[in-house]
């Protein structure tokens, strides 16, 4: 239980995906100018990221890593299970899984939750090429510092999504205020957003010693 709590706090505050790990900056800069837009984007990313963590973890553990169960079943006598398919297939499999998942979620939501679809639907296709989803999937599996269990991986994916949403919401609050000010023309838009993000990251550095 304490372990899960550490993962949650770590993924939201200490290693915030945007402010400490530099993942998902394109949507962070491009859709954080309005609060409702920022919230929809954050919710869509959190949703896809939780699902993607689940699926990629299963694929990694049972198919890609050395001595994986399915590999031993399929290529028992050969050398393939010892090496694993991770180095060759991981990148391609992960991106395809995420793309397929995003499509699936989009179709499902359009049919069964039209209201929710209207609020975050337009952001869904963009998530495929958003590095935050694939980055967290990689950090859960082959780039994990300690090997995670399935529950821990899913919790980490979900908390990273919450951390992303938190950063988006904070940023949109700041940017709505900036919108009322007279910013020098070269700084308007993305440059001032980056400088604000820098100051916000400075504040988040205060969490760095924890854990």
């Amino acid at each position, binding site marked *: 239980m304490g372990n899960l709590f550490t993962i949650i706090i770590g993924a939201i505050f200490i290693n915030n995906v945007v*402010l*400490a*790990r*530099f*993942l*998902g*900056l*394109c949507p962070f*800069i*491009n*859709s954080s100018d309005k609060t409702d837009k920022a919230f929809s984007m954050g919710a869509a990313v959190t949703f896809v990221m939780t699902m993607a963590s689940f699926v990629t973890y299963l694929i990694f553990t049972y198919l890609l890593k050395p001595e994986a169960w399915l590999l031993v079943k399929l290529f028992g006598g050969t050398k393939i299970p010892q090496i694993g398919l991770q*180095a*060759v*297939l*991981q*990148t*391609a499999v*992960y*991106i*395809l899984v995420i*793309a397929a998942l995003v499509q699936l979620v989009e179709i499902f939501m359009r049919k069964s939750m039209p209201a929710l679809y209207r609020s975050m639907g337009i952001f869904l296709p*963009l998530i*495929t*090429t*958003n*590095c935050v989803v*694939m*980055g967290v999937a*990689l*950090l859960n599996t082959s*780039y994990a510092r300690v090997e995670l269990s399935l529950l821990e991986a899913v919790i980490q994916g979900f908390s990273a999504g919450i951390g992303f949403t938190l950063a988006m919401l904070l940023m949109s609050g700041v940017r709505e205020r900036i919108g009322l000010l007279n910013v020098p*023309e*070269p*700084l308007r838009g*993305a*440059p*001032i*957003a*980056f*400088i604000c*993000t*820098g*100051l916000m*990251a*400075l504040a*988040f*550095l205060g969490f760095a010693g924890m854990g």
Partner: protein
Amino acid sequence: MLRELTKGFFKRNPIFVLMVGLCPTLATTTAMKDALAMGMAVVAVVTCSNAIISLVRSVIPKGVRIPCYIVIIAAFVTIVEMLMKYFLPLEVNEKLSIFIPLIVVNCIILYRAEDFAQKNGVLASVFDGIGMGGGFTLAVLTVSTIREVLGNGTFLGLRFSTSYTPMAVMTLAPGAFIVLGLLLAFFRWRALRKTRMAPAQASVPEMPEAQEATA
């Protein structure tokens, strides 16, 4: 043809002007040699994928072109990843860690495939890839030079002065954001000044197109 090669460096620099592929620009620029390795990896992937996509562009059906591009790009990313694991020192690989496989979702590469390689010949696409990759390398080198010199007091790992006290914040996350913000502002200031100096030409601002690409 030469124009395809040079446009990526300044006029349509993917980072400073088009603002695509920002994540690796911040994450891999604490030291210049990491940035150089990252830049070279992106040059290799964008050039090869541009060439192949432009070769097979008439075979791929329009409806499924994006998944096809992604698979082609993923193949080259895997090759580059393996080569880098083998040839580069361990500490560079550890610094770049997830950002090498993440080249596959880097907006620059898919953007060039969609915007250029599927409409143009192989040679032009290769030049475009080299130019855009080169522009990216130039950008990450600029950011990393500022961050390494100010934050670590070194240039390419060599200490240049004993009296300078490094600003540690530059090597951390906040420094990266602020340096990139100021650089973006500088490039926009230059573009604005140019349009003001030549009002007769009434040049179309390039920002809307860039936002479409990243949005």
